[in-house]
């Protein structure tokens, strides 16, 4: 008889079965789950790491992006006290993207160029890092905008008063598609995120900036969301540019 009781009591009770006890058992700590999702082996789904770097992915869902961007803005809005604080935070959020976008886009350019990676062309298409100011600005205005938003920016201008200031104009920034700014913070432009991306590209290319900021263009009837990205380059960048110009076109 005792032998029979020991055999029946042998299997331990399932951890969640606390029907017959007064105390709720504490669950053992769960095993660490890596946050990176990876499809189970045997499935044919590809992760982002399996994709070719040189081929850009086809279109991304705008509402999905809007949802993420919305959450980003809500988060920073809740954490910050002023309009300039939100803009700085959005700018910082975009910065690392810019640093990586420079490398990625240059890599793609090189892979797409007919000469492959060894191509020695001068401008852009070879995958060489832009070394002159105008090359960089055209890279941002054309390649970066196409890579991020599928189209070029609408204008590229130099400031008439300060020669270290350049302006990139976007009539309808994609990131602002669903964003309406309430009246009490009408100065806020959420394209500060894109300004951060641009700043990251400039810094990574070796053109230090005093900051890139996004501003609303005022008095615009046709494009109510028209945004001007103001790029202020550092003095030493301008001096170097002068020197290169004097030395015969980047020799």
């Amino acid at each position, binding site marked *: 008889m005792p032998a029979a009781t020991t055999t029946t009591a042998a299997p331990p009770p399932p951890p969640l079965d606390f029907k017959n006890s007064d105390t709720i058992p504490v669950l053992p700590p769960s095993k660490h789950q890596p946050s990176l999702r990876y499809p189970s082996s045997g499935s044919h789904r590809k992760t982002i790491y399996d994709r070719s770097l040189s081929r850009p992915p086809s279109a991304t869902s705008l509402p999905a992006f809007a949802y993420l*961007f*919305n959450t980003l*803005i*809500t988060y920073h*809005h809740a954490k910050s006290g002023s309009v300039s604080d939100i803009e700085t935070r959005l700018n910082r959020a975009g910065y690392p993207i810019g640093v990586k976008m420079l490398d990625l886009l240059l890599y793609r350019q090189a892979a797409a160029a007919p000469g492959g990676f060894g191509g020695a062309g001068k401008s852009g298409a070879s995958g060489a890092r832009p070394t002159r100011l105008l090359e960089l600005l055209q890279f941002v205005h054309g390649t970066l905008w196409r890579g991020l938003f599928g189209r070029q920016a609408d204008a590229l201008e130099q400031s008439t008063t300060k020669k270290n200031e350049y302006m990139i104009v976007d009539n309808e920034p994609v990131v602002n598609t*669903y*964003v*309406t700014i309430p*009246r009490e913070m009408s100065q806020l432009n959420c394209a500060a995120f894109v300004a951060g991306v641009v700043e990251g590209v400039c810094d990574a290319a070796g053109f230090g900036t005093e900051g890139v900021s996004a501003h609303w263009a005022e008095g615009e009837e046709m494009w109510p969301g028209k945004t001007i990205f103001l790029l202020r380059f550092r003095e030493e960048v301008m001096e170097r540019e002068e020197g290169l110009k004097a030395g015969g076109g980047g020799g």
Partner: protein
Amino acid sequence: MQVRTGVCGGARQPEASHPNRYRRRASPVRLHATGLRVSEVAAMVVFALLIINKAGGLIFNRTFAPGLQKLDSNDYLILAGTFHGIHAISRTISPAPPVQPLPGNRRPPTTGIESMESSHFRLTCFQTPTGVKFLLFTSPEQPNTDAVVRRCYEIYGEFVMKNPFYSLEMPVRVEKFDRALGAYLVRP
């Protein structure tokens, strides 16, 4: 005045064959229940759009046609609150025979008033799954009011719900929503 209510679920069917749909014909209403007048307005028009949150508060109102009688904001609030109440009553007290639910399922909720017609206007009510109501006032000749009100809901979803600065249940003051709605409903 004709009032139409319906039952959730299932495809829309022609009214005559649908057992859960009824039409009641009362003497034609001469009184402008909404204060909207159609004197100088063309026959097929959208007059106004009201959005009522799930607590019965008016969160948006806008008129789209010229020559409408002016209502002050208090009247709009009363209109919204009253309709919210009547709508809630019409969901429970309805002469339509109850639908027999499948065993184990709850009875599908009735939608309440879907449209209301008079000789001067038609009111189309669209309730979203979260309880927000869209009231669309049109002329009685306006076709496809269901599609119009659904499109308004889509625009609301795009520019109000995707806007990070909008807080739920609060009055809608979203410029892009106004602009998109104007582009859709205001006749040039």
